[in-house]
């Protein structure tokens, strides 16, 4: 382990400080951090609006006589558990990081482990969704079989695409945390956490929508 310590510096690309520094909890001190936090919420708003459009399409479409009933593949319950658990692990990781002052510290190591757990759970969710589609196909329900299956595939697929974006962000964060001589922008972690929790909440909504309506 190198003797030089790498500080976790909120928001700036300052590489010059080689001393231990008290980490400042995220307060949005720089305008760029505030802008990225606004950006994430604006993005969340847009994604919500898109799924609102899909939802209204569902409500209009269900008024026709060929509306059937779709039994939810059982693996979906497990997937939901995975995704919600991943939000918990991400929160533990984030709070550990907030308490950490340097990357090699205990807190930071805990943060890395729990972040890895988040990655595993998030990937498990994606794999599980694929298995859900397999289960449906095995039961003879494809994209165009009936309107219910169409909506199921569309909603879950678009959701998974957004989950994958979140997974990519988590992989990037893991990479930054693992590298011993990197600087680490806390705001990226915070924003990824906001996005990831949103994706979890969105899934709960979509799952309930599919359970009740499809």
């Amino acid at each position: 382990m190198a003797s030089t310590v790498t500080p976790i510096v909120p928001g700036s690309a300052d590489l010059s400080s080689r001393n231990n520094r008290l980490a400042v909890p995220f307060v949005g001190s720089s305008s760029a951090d505030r802008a990225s936090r606004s950006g994430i919420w604006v993005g969340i708003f847009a994604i919500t609006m898109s799924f609102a459009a899909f939802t209204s399409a569902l409500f209009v479409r269900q008024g026709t006589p060929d509306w059937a009933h779709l039994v939810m593949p059982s693996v979906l319950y497990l997937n939901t558990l995975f995704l919600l658990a991943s939000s918990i692990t991400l929160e533990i990781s984030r709070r550990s990081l907030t308490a950490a002052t340097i990357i090699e510290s205990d807190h930071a190591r805990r943060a890395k482990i729990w972040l890895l757990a988040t990655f595993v759970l998030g990937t498990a969710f994606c794999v599980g969704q694929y298995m859900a589609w397999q289960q449906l196909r095995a039961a003879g329900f494809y994209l165009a079989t009936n309107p219910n299956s169409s909506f199921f595939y569309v909603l879950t697929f678009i959701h998974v695409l957004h989950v994958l974006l979140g997974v990519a962000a988590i992989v990037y964060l893991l990479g930054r945390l693992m590298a011993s001589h990197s600087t680490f922008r806390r705001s990226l972690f915070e924003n990824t956490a906001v996005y990831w929790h949103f994706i979890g909440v969105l899934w709960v909504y979509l799952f309930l929508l599919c359970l009740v309506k499809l």
Partner: protein
Amino acid sequence: MHETSAQQVVHAPPQGFWRKYVFSLDHKVIGKQYYALALVAVFTGMFLSWLMRIHMVWPTAKIVGLELLSKNGAPGGVMTPEYYLSLLTMHGTLMVFFVLTNAPFAAFGNYFLPIQIGAEDMAFPRFNMMSFWTTFLAWVVLMLAFVIPDGPPIAGWTEYTPLSAVGRDAGPGMQWGASLWGISIAIFCIASLLGALNFIATTLDLRAKGMTLMRMPLCTWAWFITSCIALLAFAVLLPACILLILDRHAGTSFFIPGGLVASDRLQPHSGGSPLLWQHLFWFFGHPEVYIAILPSMGIVSHILINSMRKPLLSAKVVIYSMLSIGFLSYMVWGHHMFVSGMNPLSSLTFSFPTLTITIPATILTLIWLGSLYGARIQLTSASLFAIGFISMFVSGGISGFFLAQPSLDIYLHGTYFVVGHFHMVMGVASLFGVFAGTYFWFPKMTGRYMNETIGKVHFWFTFIGTYLIFMPMHYLGLIGNVRRYQSFVNDYMAPYLWLHKDMTIAALITGAAQFLFLFNLIYSRFWGAPAPENPWNGTSLEWSVSSPPPWNNFGDRHPIVYHDPYQYGVKGSKGDFVMQDSPEVLASGD
């Protein structure tokens, strides 16, 4: 939401040709790129409209060279009726998406919003670059529709289902042409969402010290409100396009009902709702037209104040009116669907906010007119187009009052009355805002003046020409001239064909005048008279930097703003104006 100075460098100074001019992170370069794309699209769209108008009046005429554009669509140079619809579709799509969303909003907004709020760039420069090149990709995909043998789709820029969803049975161009349209517009949605996100985050968080929201220039407000509208609107069009593509290629039936027979073939779908497409599309489509007009309203306000050397009657009321228009724009989409077969009670529910939205629009017009009254305005090309905007907005907007009422719209829907209405407000008024902005900001963007004489000739030709083209359309609509028809062979239209001929001639002449503008643009860019930092004695922050501005807008300084941006005619000030970043004490308060 408080303002602090930007504390860090948003991106490094550009090095090398590719970073400087192609994949630039600089919002100014990206703004110019959007403008260039809009320029190409507008001339393409104008050319298409010429072809349409010529065919309408001389349906059997041989248009030299047209067979090169499409062997199937114009064999021997004579346009087929279906190809007329293809050209109509591409004209609308290019103009609404690639001109009216790009030029007033993406181009000028990208260039000037950061400077006007005192920031050194947009909040997310990489997203910004991505959104331009994604828009460019969307344009390329759309233009591919011209190249494929079957040609572009014939369903109009609105691509109503079920005909847009069933494929080739709906007619030529409805196989790959319509798919290319769907993919192109879906890509465009993603690009616009990224752009809107950038505008919103930048406006909320990168304002300079002293720049409160109420101290932002009116055009900045217009861009900010437009980006909020765009965020929600394009977020709904994207799912609609996805569902349409699925219906076309994956055999789903979101939009296609059962028992549909097209080209004598029973379509293998059932249960879909054609009206669903209209709801989703117009939920986007109506805010889209406000996306087209709001930035021009802001630009025109900004220019008028500068030209009159006095502020508007109330900038606050202008801001609140624009906010109301933005808010109400989401409640009126059903007025495009009065005759679609939906519940008449729904029609009433949509008609009411449609009539309500005329109130803030009228307030804006009255403020402009009231501010102009008694003002000594300096007439430049920019201010002429700004005043012309008001004329066009009123002329085009008044027909909206009629269309807003279901009882009248039952008759007027699908006629030239509608075509005249939307061309006046979108095609002319919105474009006048773009012209005004170009003449006004060209010195800042290039360090050179545009030629004022050519500009004024351009203005008069365009002003008179567009009135000659589009006002008669209202009359034609009233007598029952149906729209989206490739020619008029019915007896009842015969006495009015002369009017169509006149409109075509006016269109050709007015279109030719636009080449004056293009020439002016290109010539002045290289050989125009040099312009100083503040050629119009403006007060907003863009006039406090060099022409053109340095890569990080303000160099090493962080501007501090002391008051609102429209301190003109201030007694006791040096000159008749006080710049926004001048701490000079004013006679009156903020």
